[in-house]
């Protein structure tokens, strides 16, 4: 449900101070050994490197395509080829370019966002957008199928089957292949048991990843996202033509936000939480209540729920197995955005494999996968950290949320927010504007908290 609240541009430089703690520091020591190791890895004779990608979402599709193009023999295992994953389906503008997506898979172009505070102050963000800029809304079944199709035409073998488990190489022979067991859906009622031997595995099988389980990758904390697809009358739908809404407040979610996103011919109304999962139905009712006037007369056509990872798994690489996308836990805090990061991590991991195997001619090693991790953390850690800080500062209480919405009314904030969301780059802001913003934000926070103290004294 990517949205655009990575707003507080003043915080943007903050991550640089965290670099000291960031993973890359460990790495300088080990890097030389990796390179030596990769070069000394045995050359494969008579066959290219075989890599299996488990899961055919954006991460799997992107990984498989890159692998196949790079000369690796690629197998992509997906259990349901027409799977419509419950997902907000928002993608940033840069994804369209970077992944060369055709424009017709984008159902809607959102150019306006409304943020609504607990006391119902509504702020329109997006006035600073240039005419060609928008947030794309896609249907996951369309996007996923498209990316898989591209992987397939690049030479990857797409297998419709359910991955069951894999046998790791025995400790005494670490370069032995991995044996994957899966249930091939070949038209028979229960499918056929099959197995497949590969040299490396990329786990792109989402939050319930079985690949993660088989390498003992550990668990992550997750949020539950609940969403209802509601078909609303045409007159009401016109309002949501190119507009998405975000509701914040303790009634809607104690630690996330409620949303109304336009889909192809209906809206998706939902909310999420980490801390109070048992109350999700209550939050959903509250979200519907807050949007009531605008969705009145609507009919629920589907109800769905899904886990959203809160942070990466403790292990993302083990041997020649790597995790990408949701399986690894690459979803941002605050906005809950994951599609772009999934596709990007899939591609980055695959690139590391192609490079390490010199185009599929050599065996890969754990070091090659570590290279992907190192690059990933270096590139995206600042983004994740900023969003984590934003979530902690602005989603913690109603007064903070009021201040957040007030802050978003500022044009400078909107511009920085959209730029960082749409292009995923960190553009340094104007120091004077940053300072002004910091002062205004503190002002908003102080006022809202002062009111809160006053509220505590009153009994109604």
């Amino acid at each position, binding site marked *: 449900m990517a949205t655009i609240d990575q707003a507080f541009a003043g915080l943007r430089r903050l991550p640089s101070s*965290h670099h000291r703690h*960031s993973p890359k520091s*460990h790495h300088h020591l*080990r890097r030389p050994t990796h390179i030596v190791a990769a070069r000394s890895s045995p050359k494969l004779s008579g066959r290219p490197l075989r890599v299996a990608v488990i899961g055919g979402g954006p991460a799997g599709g992107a990984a498989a395509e890159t692998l196949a193009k790079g000369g690796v023999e690629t197998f992509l295992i997906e259990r349901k080829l027409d799977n*419509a994953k*419950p997902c907000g389906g928002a993608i940033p503008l840069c994804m369209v370019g970077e992944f060369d997506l055709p424009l017709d898979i984008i159902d809607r172009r959102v150019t306006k966002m409304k943020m609504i505070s*607990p*006391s*119902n*102050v509504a702020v329109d963000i997006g006035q600073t957008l240039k005419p060609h800029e928008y947030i794309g809304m896609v249907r996951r079944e369309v996007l996923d199928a498209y990316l898989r199709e591209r992987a397939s035409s690049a030479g990857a073998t797409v297998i419709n089957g359910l991955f069951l488990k894999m046998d790791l190489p025995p400790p005494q022979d670490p370069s032995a292949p991995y044996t994957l067991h899966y249930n091939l859906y070949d038209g028979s009622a229960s499918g056929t048991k099959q197995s497949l031997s590969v040299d490396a595995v990329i786990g792109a099988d989402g*939050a*319930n990843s079985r690949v993660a389980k088989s390498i003992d990758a550990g*668990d992550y904390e*997750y949020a*539950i996202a609940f969403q209802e697809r509601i078909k609303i009358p045409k007159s009401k739908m016109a*309002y949501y033509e190119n507009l998405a809404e975000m*509701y914040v*407040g303790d*009634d809607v979610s104690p630690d996330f936000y409620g949303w109304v996103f336009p889909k192809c011919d209906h809206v998706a109304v939902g909310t999420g939480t980490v801390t109070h*999962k*048992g109350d*999700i*139905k*209550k939050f959903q*009712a*509250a979200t*519907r*209540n*807050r949007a*009531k*006037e*605008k*969705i009145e*007369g*609507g*009919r*629920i056509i*589907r*109800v*769905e*729920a899904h*886990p959203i990872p*809160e*942070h*990466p*798994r403790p*292990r*993302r*690489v083990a041997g020649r197995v790597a995790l990408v996308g949701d399986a690894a836990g690459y979803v941002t805090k605050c906005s809950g955005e994951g599609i772009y990061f999934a596709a990007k991590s899939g591609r980055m991991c695959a690139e590391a494999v192609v490079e390490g195997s010199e185009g599929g001619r050599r065996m890969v090693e*754990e070091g090659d996968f570590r290279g992907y991790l190192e690059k990933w953390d270096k590139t995206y850690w600042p983004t994740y*950290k900023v969003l984590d*800080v934003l979530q*902690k500062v602005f989603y913690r209480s*109603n007064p903070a949320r009021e201040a957040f919405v*007030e802050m978003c009314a500022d044009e400078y904030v909107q511009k920085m927010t959209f730029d960082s969301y749409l292009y995923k780059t960190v553009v340094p802001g104007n120091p004077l504007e940053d300072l002004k913003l910091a002062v205004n934000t503190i*002002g908003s926070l102080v*006022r*809202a908290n002062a009111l809160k103290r006053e509220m505590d004294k*009153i009994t*109604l």
Partner: protein
Amino acid sequence: MSMALFSPPHLPSTLSSSRPNYSSPLKLSLLPLHLSKRNLVLLPTKAVNVGEEVTNSAVKVEEKKLDEKDEKEELGVGSEGVKFGDPRWVGGTWDLKQFVKGGSTDWDAVIDAEARRRKWLIDNPESSSNDDPVVFDTSIIPWWSWVKRFHLPEAELLNGRAAMVGFFMAYFVDSLTGVGLVDQMGNFFCKTLLFVAVLGVLLIRKNEDIDTLKKLFEETTFYDKQWQATWQDENASSPKD
């Protein structure tokens, strides 16, 4: 904990059989739920039970849906949400003309009124409306009236405390080192002490503040640790390779 809510036992058996048996805690987290219409009706019933007190209006909606039980599960029909009402709340904002006292706006009363409204909204979340938007902005209340109201009473306490701490520090330094008050002012060490005292008085106003600060620090570094887990793993396993 919430699995019961999400996958009611009456899910069609085909669905449950196609769902693998995970044992991680993530198993709560469902795979996509393709609910049939029958289940759609059942799900909101539970919502009614859970959200009873909080969203009265939503309950009405749901009940209506249950009564109809056919395709016409319409949302929001016939439910009239309770709206906040106050004669001084006009057109989505406080009518400042009604707050005039002795020729000028009584900002204290505006703060009181807004606090009441927000308190009321906590128990009665209102639907947002495009026809009747909320336009009140707390920044129209001038800064001095916030200071007057919220900082001054506390400032008294803080000033008093700072003076006490300062006096006794000066006394101890004098008695231990023999450096008089006037000489202390020129001393770098003593200036630092003064700075620490002021900062301490500002940050630690209550005993709980110490805990709060400690927790805040842990909270800010928690996410860093979660990300670093992968790399700690590598360090632990590095002797192996």
